[in-house]
């Protein structure tokens, strides 16, 4: 997995389109929090959830599966149970995604290996919103121990 600071910074700086697999339309769910946060920080969000297929979430069309998405996807962000991740990882490889990102509490090591063997970046058991706020500012305003020590301004 590529969970170190250098790799996370590279992923979040290089890739701008995030397919959020398992995105909920309910405002108080963590997946909605994370997607709304990333959208407001300039990322293109592509909702993937069969339950809302064809509807709009956060102003974006929701697809039933990754295979239905017509546009190129950089990051596949997974809000699903650990045991359900492997087929999503396979699809991520098939559609040419650059990174498989398993959310906090999602930690499928088989999927991690599969993604890395296909030359994708792979992040496990991390929240995309929390890591973005940790690296680029925001998390440090709510007293979280970010682990970031630096003599350079945040950019």
């Amino acid at each position, binding site marked *: 997995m590529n969970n170190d600071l250098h790799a996370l910074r590279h992923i979040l700086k290089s890739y701008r389109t995030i397919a959020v697999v398992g995105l909920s339309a309910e405002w108080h769910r963590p997946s909605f929090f994370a997607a709304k946060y990333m959208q407001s920080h300039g990322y293109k969000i592509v909702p993937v959830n069969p339950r809302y297929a064809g509807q709009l979430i956060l102003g974006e069309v929701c697809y039933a599966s990754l295979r239905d998405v017509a546009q190129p996807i950089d990051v596949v962000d997974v809000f699903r149970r650990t045991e359900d991740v492997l087929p999503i990882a396979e699809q991520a490889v098939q559609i040419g995604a650059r990174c498989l990102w398993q959310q*906090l509490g999602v930690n499928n090591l088989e999927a991690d290996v599969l993604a890395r063997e296909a030359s994708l970046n792979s992040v496990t058991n991390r929240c995309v919103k929390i890591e973005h706020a940790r690296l680029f500012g925001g*998390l440090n305003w*709510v007293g*979280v*121990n970010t*682990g970031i020590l630096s003599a350079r301004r945040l950019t």
Partner: protein
Amino acid sequence: MSDRKFHPETLAIHAGQIPDAATGARALPIYQTSSFVFDSAEHAASLFNLQTFGNVYSRLSNPTVAVLEERVAALEGGRAGVASASGMAAETMALMTILQAGDHVVAAGALYGGSVTMLAVSLRKFGIETTFVDATHSEAFAAAMRPNTRAVFAESLGNPSMVLLDIAAVAEVAHAHGVPLIVDNTVPSPMLCNPLALGADIVVHSATKYLAGHGTTLGGMVIEGGKFPWDNGKYPGMTEPSAGYHGVKFYETFGDFGFTMRCRMESLRVFGAALSPMSAWQILQGVETLPLRMQKHCDNAMGVAKYLQDDPRVAWVNYPGLPDHPQHTLMKRQMRGASGLLAFGVKGGLHRGVKFIESAQFMSHLVNIGDTRTLISHPASTTHRQLDDVQQLAAGVPPDMVRISVGLENLDDILWDIDQALAAAQ
């Protein structure tokens, strides 16, 4: 590439503060402002919904205060922290965030007097009952647990009882009952003891003491370890939609810093004991030198303890750094030094102790600890005055106890002042 794990000396200077994004200022700017502008109505809504991180109003968060929060969290090896206006405010917030009427607390008997009063009197008014137990026996904690117990509270090193808590053993007792162990780590400071690494779940500090170190500024800290399973069924306030913050589920949304977010958005926001940015800045000036100071405090205190132990005018000395202290082995196991605090009795009892205090030349008679200056006090008539005789003894405060918070002056000068004051007390 794995991330560097920095040492406490480095964290004490750098953690939480990177150069200011707007100006490049290297030292920490003081953001002395009550409020922060929104970019748009949508931005405001996102901030209030906690969907994006940002500053709204300094009672909730402030960029200067946040540096102190992150720095102390880093020094404690914690996940996140919240600062408060005083140590008592920190303790109140830590408890009030998870407790409600009908709940029960098991607490060490040997606590700072204000903490005893808060538990025995103030929280009791709101239907929260506390059982006090002998902090030196982890079985006593186990025996006091009830089905409605929701927190275990103790000091890592008791002030001024100098009683140590076997943190790992008591954490095990608490966890076996599905409740968190909250530890007041004020006296050791994060340099000498890290309760979270030993199994505690939440640490509180009076930052007024060693963290600030200069005796100028009040402040407190609550730090969360991030490992407690708040979804074990005993803390619906952590898992159910928050009535205090429009339906947010704190544990689900913020995970391992969910307690800290709830503490901030419910307790700090509502009770309002926020730390001022100026105070946070002043405390941080002290934190940068904490590693150096704690070493010197420990060295000087050991010198004072040995001197008192050998002095025929002294009845008893209580300092865990001394090899014959009953908990010396435990001290060596879970601390990196016995702190600058010690207690002793002057032969002849209370009136000679009082005369000793009144005869000191530069040692200050006052009720604070952790200052650069050496401080002396008589706990039974000051910090523990609200307790009755039985409660005082349970708190480890015999009537003849003199407390010394050994400062950073020259050791020989401190011993000279002690010697002349002991002589005057005869």
